[in-house]
C-alpha cells in the first residue's frame, strides 16, 4: 500500500465515521418507529422533511394569500385587516365589457390581463417558431454545432435582471442599437418609449432569454426521431416540406405540446426582464399581470395587498389549468411511449 492510498483511506474513514455514529444514534428510534407504524410509517418519516418544506414555503403562503384576498385595507399583518369576503374578487371582475379595460372598475388589472393575453399569444408563437427553426438547424450537420448549441443556450443561464439590463443598454435611446443605426445613417428609434416598439422589445427580449431552453427540448425530440424514417422518406421521394409536416412535426408533437404548455405558463408569469427593460411603460403598454400584482401589493403608495392577493389567486387558477393540461399531456405521452 502506498503512502498516498493509506492517507486517502484515513481521510475516507474520518469522513465516514461521523455518518456511522449518526446512523447508530438514529437507528434505535427508527426501529422503534418502524415497529410501531410499519412500512407506511417509515415512508411518512422519510417524506416528512420534504412535506415540511413544502408546507412552510408553498402551502402555508398559498393559504395565507387566499386569506389576504378575503380582507381589505393596507395593513400587512392579517389580524389587523378586515374581512370582506369575495369583495376583492368582485372588484377585479366588475366590468362593463371585458374587452374594454376602461369600462372595468379595476381598469389596470384588465389592462394587464389584455397585455398579458396579447403577450402570451405573440411571445409563445414567436418563441415556438424560433425555437423550432433553431432546433432544426442545430440538428443538422453544421460546422461548430456544439458551439452554436452552447451559444443559443447561454441566455438561459443569465438572471432575468441581467437580461433586462443588457437589452436596456442596447435599446435605450442612446443605446447600442441606435448608435449602430446612426452610423448607417438612420434616425434613432424610441425602442423603449414607443408603445408598439416597447411591447415588441418585451416579446423579443423574452424570446431571446428563453428560447435556448425550448430549443434544447425540441432538439432532444428531433434527435429521438430515428434516422431511418428520414431515409425511408428519401427513398419514397418525399419533398423536404412534406417531410417536415408529415414526419418531423407529428413525431415531435409530444415534445412540442410540452414546450407549448411550459412556454404558456412562463409567458403568463412574465415579469422581471420586461419590468427591468420598460418598467411597464410607456404608460401601461407593457404592464403585465405579475407586475400589476407586485405594484398593487407592494410598490404603490395606496397599496392593497388584498386586491393583489385576489389577482394572484385568479392568475394562479389559470396556471393550475395549464399545469393540469401539461400533466395530462405528459401522461398521455408516457402511455403512448409505452405502447410503441
Amino acid at each position: 500500500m502506498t503512502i498516498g492510498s493509506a492517507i486517502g483511506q484515513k481521510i475516507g474513514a474520518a469522513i465516514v465515521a461521523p455518518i456511522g455514529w449518526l446512523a447508530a444514534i438514529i437507528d434505535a428510534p427508527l426501529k422503534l418507529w418502524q415497529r410501531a407504524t410499519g412500512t407506511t410509517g417509515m415512508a411518512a418519516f422519510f417524506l416528512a422533511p420534504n412535506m415540511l418544506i413544502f408546507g412552510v414555503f408553498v402551502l402555508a403562503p398559498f393559504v395565507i394569500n387566499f386569506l389576504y384576498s378575503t380582507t381589505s385595507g393596507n395593513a400587512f399583518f392579517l389580524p389587523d385587516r378586515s374581512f370582506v369576503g369575495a369583495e376583492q374578487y368582485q372588484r377585479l371582475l366588475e366590468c362593463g365589457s371585458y374587452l374594454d379595460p376602461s369600462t372595468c372598475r379595476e381598469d389596470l388589472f384588465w389592462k394587464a390581463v389584455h397585455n398579458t393575453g396579447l403577450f402570451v399569444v405573440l411571445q409563445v408563437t414567436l418563441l415556438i417558431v424560433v425555437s423550432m427553426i433553431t432546433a432544426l438547424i442545430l440538428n443538422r450537420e453544421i460546422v461548430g454545432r456544439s458551439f452554436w448549441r452552447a451559444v443559443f443556450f447561454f441566455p438561459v443561464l443569465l438572471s432575468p435582471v441581467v437580461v433586462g439590463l443588457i437589452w436596456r443598454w442596447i435599446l435605450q435611446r442612446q443605446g447600442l442599437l441606435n448608435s449602430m443605426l446612426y452610423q448607417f445613417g438612420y434616425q434613432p428609434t424610441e425602442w423603449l418609449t414607443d408603445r408598439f416598439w416597447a411591447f415588441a422589445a418585451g416579446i423579443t427580449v423574452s424570446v431571446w432569454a428563453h428560447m435556448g431552453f425550448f430549443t434544447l427540448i425540441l432538439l432532444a425530440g428531433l434527435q429521438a426521431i430515428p434516422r431511418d424514417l428520414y431515409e425511408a422518406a428519401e427513398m419514397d421521394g418525399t419533398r423536404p416540406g412534406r417531410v417536415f409536416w408529415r414526419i418531423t412535426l407529428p413525431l415531435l408533437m409530444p415534445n412540442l405540446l410540452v414546450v407549448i404548455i411550459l412556454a404558456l405558463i412562463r409567458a403568463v408569469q412574465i415579469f422581471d426582464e420586461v419590468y427591468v427593460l420598460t418598467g411597464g411603460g410607456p404608460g401601461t403598454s407593457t404592464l403585465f399581470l405579475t407586475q400589476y400584482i407586485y405594484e398593487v401589493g407592494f410598490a404603490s403608495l395606496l397599496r392593497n395587498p388584498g386586491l393583489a392577493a385576489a389577482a394572484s389567486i385568479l392568475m394562479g387558477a389559470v396556471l393550475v389549468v395549464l399545469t393540469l393540461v401539461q400533466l395530462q399531456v405528459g401522461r398521455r405521452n408516457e402511455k403512448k411511449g409505452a405502447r410503441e
Partner: protein
Amino acid sequence: MGRITLTNIDRAYGKVKVLHDINLDIQDGEMLVLVGPSGCGKSTLLRLLAGLDQPTSGKLEIDGRDVTRVSAADRGLAMVFQSYALYPHMTVRQNLAFGLENQRMPKAEIDTRINEATRMLEIGQYLDRRPGQLSGGQRQRVAIGRAVVRNPTAFLLDEPLSNLDAELRISTRAEISALHKRLATTMVYVTHDQVEAMTLADRIVVMRAGRIEQIGRPLDLYNEPANLFVAGFIGAPRMNLLPCKVKATAPGSVRIEGPGGLSMSIVASDANLKPGEDFTVGIRPHDMTIGMGSDGALEAQVTLVEALGPETVAHTLTADGQKLVAVLKGQQLDGSGGSIKLHFDPAMAHLFDRSGQRVPHR
C-alpha cells in the same frame, strides 16, 4: 428490367476507406446476397446503391443509366430497412400509400396497388392499425409491402430478418424467397447470416473489410472457397482449418503432416507445393468421421458433445491445441469425453497457400 452495375466503387469517410474498388454486375431478376461480418461494408454498399450515400469515386448504373449522382427517389429502387423504418404515427395503409402519394399517383391506382400488396403479403386485416400495434413479423411484412407497392426496378433489403425470432426468421426467409420468385424482380439482400445467404441467394458476394472476397453461387462458394476467409465464413459449423506442412511430394500427390498426429497423402495434381512448405488444409465438419486406423487420423480429446438427434456435433482439441469440430451422423458419442480418432476423405480437403489463397488440387 433491373440490372445494376457497379464499376470501381470506392467510399471513404475522411481518411478511412470503407469500400475498395468494388466491381459488381447484378443481373436482372437476380437475388444477390451481400454477406460478411459486421463492419465489412455491405450495408454501406447497399446505401450507395439506394442513393442514401454517395461513392467517393466509381460509377453506378441501373439498366445502363448512370445513376451515380442521381437522388434516391429517382433511382426507382425500394428499400426494406433493418429497423423496418415504418412511420409510427401512420396506419399501415398510410405507410403503404405515403410514397405513392409523393408521386402524385391517382387515389384509385394507390388503392389498387395497396390491395394487391396486402393480398400478396396477407396484411389486409392490419391496414388500419399503427406499427406499434403490430408484432415484429407483421411489421416486417408491412415494410416489404411498402417496397412492393412502389413496383421498383429492384428491391434493396438491409438485414430484414435480424429483428425476428429464430422460428419466424425461417418462415419469413421462405416467404421472401417465394416473393422473389413471384415478382421476378432484382433483389439485393444484405445479411451477416451465412445460412440466410445460402438459402436465399442466386449468387452470394462475400465481403471483408470493404473488399469483395468472392462472388459465386452458394454451392460454388461452399465447395470451392477462394480463400481462407470465405472458407471460414461460408458453412456452419465453420470449416476446420489445419496448419500443415508438406513432408514429401510425389507425382500427383503430396504427403502432409499436421496437428493431432495427422500424416496423410493428398491428391494434388495441380498444386505447386514443395517439401517443407507451410499451407492450410481445410476440412468441413460434415466431412469428418470417427475411425479406428491411424493413417490419416487426427487424434483429439472430446471437449463438448452436442447431440442434436439426427447428428452429433463433437467439439474436440488435439494435443497440440488445435480445435476441431466434427458433425457426425446419428448419435455417435455419449458425451463422456475421452479420446477419438477423426478421419476425413483426402478428396474432400481444401488446400490454401501461405497467403490464404485456394490451391487447386482436384
